[in-house]
């Protein structure tokens, strides 16, 4: 389903070139829960950003269901992100001006769905992540774990083909982290959700199907 060929990303910091990805190639099957692990600076987040169309690689190719993502225009990429991909960031990336429910159904509004349907689907999704009772609370009224669950609900509301999670438990305590990872596992098992998750915690390994280890911008082992 996902094919990555010789993916490179070079950043320019002043006159210095930083080779964050030096040519990475791999495949991910439908319904797979893939972990991306490695030390700091190994390129795991950079790789996730390229796959999730949040950044543009310097070289290489990315195919999702035979679509060459790097050939898409900016507006096509935006549409692809909206319809096919879901994101959970390391920080609780939810919008402070919106309630938990509004945060969740926002992508549906962009897809042109009726507000009533958006609310119903949003509530359903919040129930799934165990936050039905917190639907009308603003970001500042939610704990870190709850905010991350809101972000997960939002990432899943459009039924994405792939869910990208960039160290989703980095700012959570062990208990909240376990809840999140169990939720991912459940989504993967019950709904066949394809998940790519970046992590550096050894104990997270047990939740994923397969791990790709990165080191210095290259795949160390798969």
């Amino acid at each position, binding site marked *: 389903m996902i094919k990555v060929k010789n993916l490179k990303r070079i950043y320019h910091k002043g006159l210095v070139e930083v080779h964050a990805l030096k040519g990475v190639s791999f495949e991910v099957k439908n319904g797979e829960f893939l972990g991306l692990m490695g030390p700091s600076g190994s390129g795991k987040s950079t790789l996730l*950003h390229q796959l*999730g169309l*949040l*950044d543009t690689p310097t070289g290489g190719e990315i195919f999702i269901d035979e679509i060459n993502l790097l050939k898409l225009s900016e*507006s096509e990429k*935006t*549409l*692809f*992100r*909206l*319809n096919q*991909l879901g*994101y959970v*960031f390391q920080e609780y*990336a*939810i*919008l*402070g*001006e*919106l309630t938990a429910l*509004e945060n969740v159904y*926002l*992508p549906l*509004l*962009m897809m*042109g769905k009726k507000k009533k349907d958006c609310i119903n689907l949003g509530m359903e999704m919040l129930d799934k992540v165990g936050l039905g009772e917190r639907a009308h609370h*603003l970001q500042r009224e939610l704990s870190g774990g709850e905010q991350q669950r809101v972000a997960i609900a*939002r*990432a899943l509301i*459009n039924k994405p083909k792939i869910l990208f999670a960039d160290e989703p438990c980095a700012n959570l305590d062990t208990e909240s982290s376990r809840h999140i990872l169990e939720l991912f596992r459940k989504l993967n098992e019950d709904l066949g959700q394809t998940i790519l998750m970046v992590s550096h915690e050894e104990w997270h390994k047990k939740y994923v199907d397969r791990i790709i280890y990165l080191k210095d911008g290259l795949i160390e082992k798969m």
Partner: protein
Amino acid sequence: MFKNFKLSFFLACKSIKRSNIGTTVLTIAIMSLIFVNLIFLPSIVEGIAETIEQQTRDYMYGNILIEPKEDDFYIDNVDSLQKKINRLPGVLGTASRYMVGATFTHKDKFIGGTLHSASPADEIIVTKYHEGMISGEYLSESDTDEIIMGLDLTGEEDKEGDKADLGGVKVGDKIEVTFSNGVIKEYRLKGIFSVSKMGMDSFAFITEKEMESVLGSNNQASQILVKLNELGTEKEFKKKFMELGIKEKIKTWEEKTAGMTEVVVSSFRIITLISTIVSLIIAVVVIFVIIYINTIYKRKQIGILKAIGIDQRVIIRSYILQALFYCFSGIIIGSILLWILVSYLTTNPISFPIGTIRPVIGTSLITQSILSLLIVSLIAGFIPSWKTARESILKAIWG
């Protein structure tokens, strides 16, 4: 273009609803004051222009002024000419006048000026001097040895200064008038009027009968003032008068005052223009700063919105809508303030040297002000949101 407008509206509403109430109130207050300023000053200038025009119609020219033909000193057969004009439907009345140079003397004081004749019954229909009597009475048809004078000629008793006048003569005082033909005659001051500082208070009037006896003329006039029922029909009546075979010079009040109003209000208009430009710059700066700070503060949110697939145009539009919200709220509050201000000044007009001025607000002034505020708000809302929204997603989220 309006695809996903609802989402932009949704984001804008939430942003306004959950923003700092103090900032919102302050922004709207500034916008409303800017709107008041955009309209108020020009409305006063328009009020000045309208007062000047009104005064020239009411005291100097009527709606249409008929003057002697080229090379003629007087209009002849005035009675028949007046009858001919008065018969036309839409003509309220006519008043003929002689105008002669004269010197007015009282004791050791004297002043030169223009002496007009008036046929009181006609003048009352055509002009409003009779309403501006501040002392004594207006002329009556039978008056022969009586004169009425403007305040600028009579002067005020207790006011010392450089002004040339008769030093504060009172009703009943004797005024010696030296006519341009050398005739010298004494008149009793019957009344003093003050109607305008546009020169009309330097006029003096005796009856037509008296003027004709001094000048030795009959059925002639230096000018005929025509009063129409309806303002704005002057050109149409000028044409009708020409069709009646009137060979004298016929001019509408607008033709007579051409440029005069402009000269008086042009300086005010420059001040108004500067004030308008400054107001619009303040509006741009206020909205720009508010939206700019907003977008900088919410840079991460903008990045998140883009990351989850929200179109950049939707985000920009949401900020433009916020700018428009500030703009329209300012216009609404400003309109209320303006209504209060104009209502007050209509009942308590501002006293200017040329007379009392009421603000005049035309549709074009309102439209122009709303449009200009709208345009600057659109620009000031668009630029900062566009600048932030076009940043890369990762840079917006993580800096």
